């Protein structure tokens, strides 16, 4: 047991190494964006490869829990299908998001290196959240990612709304992190452990005894739900999202929006469906209430928006509600959650890439009027937007539909028919604002001042967008491979 297992944390090592390399390359060797791109690409590519290797390894030897050294024997990292799938997803989303927003790196000049390094750090932090078997480590991952993203949100310092976004994100985010940490502390008080697995872990604790006075534990669970609910922007903890999505540099939003949702939900699934599986009857009701509230609030507010990014932020609240809907089913909802999360992340990245093409990589506001007549100005971009909007609306033959079926089937199976009905009716109301983009792009003529102005998209953005759109369409028509994968990606 003295040997250190490198495989489970290989991705973190690679990502941190990459971040440091980029900074050194920029500062000491004075190398330009091309070098950063090579380093970041290699790092992310290798980390993604690691996920495959890990998957094969689990195929051979089964899931494994890795402990700290011999002295304390605390479980820290778990390598199961769940963590590998989630980790791979985080890395893929981070890679595509970085690729789609690469134009921002060029426009930042020297500071671009910092941006790329921060993105890699954020991805590493998110990855830790997914693989951690210990609540404290999960918190460390959360903070690593969050702090990196606070900085990214304010990266375009010359725009006041970017500063506002960063400050808002930072203050509310730290508050949420603190609540999460407090929840961990109370859980420790109730169960005597911060580890999920292992002989002294929370799972083992619940297996051995029942808590007769669960007050402290319930408050702990509630605080952790609030903390993570903030990160995934579930109502009523969503108020930061519209301002941050709108204010942060356009090209950086895809990662902030999708990556954090993936890791946040992975952490939530691990905490709730594994650690607190025993008290599912307590938390499932809270989660179902949050889900219904998120779906309804997100949809209603999204209808009222006149800015594309704000609309996406509120629609993201509704989507968080759909994913919470899967979670009420406990572990049997995890495959549905994964499919939804995996496909929605790429829809979101693709959509924000389009927004950052229309409103500029460093730009903020993205008024809906600027999408008027998009089909005439750029048919390809309009087609991509249409596919992504239909997918978010859950229309069949897009991945969004399959995701919704999986989520609602899980909820109905768990006896939450009312939640499925609330969700589906809201989903229809949601179609209103997704369709509005298609109406603007296809049914309206462009603003005469803009009609002849070509829309330029760098190759990197186009490539990333193509990946997102084909992913959305492909897994809508042939979802079976991904469904098989997600049905295996269960936590230990």
């Amino acid at each position: 047991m003295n040997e250190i297992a490198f495989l489970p944390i290989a991705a973190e090592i690679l990502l941190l190494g990459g971040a440091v390399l980029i900074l050194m390359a920029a500062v000491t060797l004075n190398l330009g964006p091309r070098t950063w791109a090579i380093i970041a690409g290699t790092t992310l590519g290798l980390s993604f490869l690691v996920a495959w290797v890990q998957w094969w390894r689990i195929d051979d030897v089964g899931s494994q829990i890795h402990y700290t050294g011999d002295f304390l024997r605390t479980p820290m990292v778990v390598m199961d299908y769940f963590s590998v799938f989630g980790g791979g997803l985080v890395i893929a989303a981070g890679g595509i998001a970085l690729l789609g927003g690469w134009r921002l790196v060029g426009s930042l000049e020297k500071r671009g290196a910092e941006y790329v390094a921060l993105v890699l750090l954020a991805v590493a932090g998110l990855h830790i959240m997914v693989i951690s078997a210990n609540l404290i480590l999960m918190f460390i991952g959360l903070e690593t990612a969050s702090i990196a993203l606070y900085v990214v949100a304010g990266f375009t310092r010359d725009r006041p709304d970017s500063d506002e976004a960063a400050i808002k994100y930072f203050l509310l985010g730290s508050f949420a992190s603190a609540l999460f940490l407090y929840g961990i502390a109370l859980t420790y008080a109730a169960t005597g452990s911060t580890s999920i697995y292992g002989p002294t872990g929370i799972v083992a604790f619940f297996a051995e005894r029942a808590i007769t006075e669960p007050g402290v534990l319930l408050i702990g669970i509630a605080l952790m739900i609030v903390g993570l609910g903030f990160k995934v922007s579930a109502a009523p903890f969503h108020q930061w999202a519209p301002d941050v999505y709108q204010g942060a540099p356009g090209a950086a939003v895809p990662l902030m929006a999708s990556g954090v949702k993936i890791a946040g939900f992975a952490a939530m699934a691990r905490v709730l469906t594994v650690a607190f599986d025993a008290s599912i009857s307590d938390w499932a009701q809270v989660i179902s209430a949050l889900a219904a509230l998120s779906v309804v609030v997100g949809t209603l507010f999204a209808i009222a928006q006149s800015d594309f990014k704000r609309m996406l932020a509120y629609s993201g609240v509704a989507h968080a509600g759909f994913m919470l809907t899967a979670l009420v089913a406990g572990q049997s909802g995890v495959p549905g959650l994964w499919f939804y999360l995996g496909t929605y992340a790429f829809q979101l990245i693709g959509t924000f890439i389009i927004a950052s093409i229309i409103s500029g990589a460093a730009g903020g506001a993205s008024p809906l009027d600027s999408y008027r007549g998009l089909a005439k100005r750029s048919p390809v971009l309009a087609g991509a937007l249409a596919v992504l909007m239909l997918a978010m609306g859950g229309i069949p033959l897009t991945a969004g539909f399959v995701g919704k079926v999986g989520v609602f089937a899980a909820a109905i199976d768990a006896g939450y028919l009312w939640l499925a009905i609330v969700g589906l009716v809201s989903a229809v109301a949601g179609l209103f604002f997704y369709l509005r983009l298609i109406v603007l792009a296809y049914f309206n003529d462009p603003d005469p001042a803009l009609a002849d102005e070509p829309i330029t998209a760098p190759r990197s953005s186009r490539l990333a967008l193509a990946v997102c759109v084909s992913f959305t369409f492909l897994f809508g028509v042939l979802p079976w491979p991904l469904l098989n994968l997600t049905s295996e990606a269960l936590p230990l």
Partner: protein
Amino acid sequence: MVDFPVIALLVLLPAIGAVVVGLLPKSRNELVLPITTAISMLPLAVALYILWEFSAADGAAFQFSESVVWYEPWGIGWNVGIDGISLLLIVLTAVLFPLSILASASVTKDVKLYMVSMLLLETGLLGVFVALDLLLFFVFFEMTLVPMYLLIGIWGSGNRVYAAVKFFLYTAFGSALLLTGIVALAVMYGNDHGSLSFAFQDLLTLQISSTAQTWLFLGFGIAFAIKVPLFPFHTWLPDAHTEAPTAGSVILAGVLLKLGTYGFVRFNLTLFPEATVDFAPWLAGLAVVGIIYGAAVAIVQPDVKRLVAYSSVSHLGFIVLGTFALTSQGLQGGVIQMVNHGLTTGALFLLIGMIYERRHTRQIADYGGLANVMPLYAGVFLFMAFASIGLPGLNGFIGEFKILLGSYLAFPVMAILAASGVVLAAIYLLWAYERMFTGPVTNDANMGLKDLNAREITILVPIALLIVLLGIYPKPALERIEPAVENIIERIEDATGHETPEFGDMDDLPAATGGHSP
């Protein structure tokens, strides 16, 4: 029967065609129409082959069945088949598409996208009629939504965006309930058998409690009622029909509305027999309201396209009435009337489109005395109007007669009220004809109008032939419909103890409308 997956071919041909059309070079827009027309002939050929090979002797069994498991854990598969109910609707779809594509010669804006939408729409519609897997059905059901939305929204007239969004949201709302119902059914199957299944044949074996049947019937029923549209869910229809381009209106009225009535017949009646018997008087009542309301509103429309749109509300009411009479005659009439309405209303919309291309107005008041300048056009219009009214010898008569006969057995009062719809139909159509075609030419702008050209005649002749054929010799069609319909009635009788009234035991019936009350 045949090992070759002929249904898969039928459904996929238009989709493949859509890809082909999509790949045509931008500079050769003039090729799009002829190529799309040619492509749309392929599914027609397959449909005719199916019609030819379909064996009336096989009774209610599904023919040409294909069953491939797609995803075991969800119990979803490519389960498709054709019986007497879907057979004619498939042929109708395959016939109407080439005609309405040919009628789209005046579309100049984004022709490629237009034709791609049309072909994808065809795939969706054909898919709905063959699907015997509920999730597959839903996918096709929804797949029709987006192309139709684009057709109305991009190539429509006047208030097109409003009409398109209204159409989409109305239907999508119904779909949400439908999807909930479908998933709930699959989960119920899973609770009984340990694994989910969306296959229609599996779900037919489910024992569903009366309460669950009621809710599921409502979930499915509202979705289909919106699609039909049944009064009071009809308000999207006049807008969508009026603003849609000609081909859009033809397909909308001809085929898309039938998804609702087909859904009722295929799923509501078979899966939820108890609830069907309970709800039948209510739905029949709504249908009668729709028949009279639609016809009454049609009379006062100043816009001829809107007039025909409202006439659809009335005609579809007949179909629903026949369906929920739950008698063999009524159901047969309902099924054959789906086809008839598709032909006659489709033809009327085509005719309106042709005159609109010439004059760019649909106001009845702008015309008058057209028979003087366009005698052929006027003749065809009158012919189609007669078919729509249900003149004996033309197709509409058979369907409406059977429906009234069948529903009189179950709901005598309603049948009598519904019969007034036939009279009203004569009023609105013939009065419109009188104002538009007879007398002297009242508007100088109409003086120089050209009569039907060769292309337009080519479009209308096949429909006219089918109308006459179904009108004077409907036996082959009814022979194929009857076993499937009888099967449904038997299923309802077995499951509920409900007795279908037959001819001869009229004395046993209460005089009022409560034919189904125990």
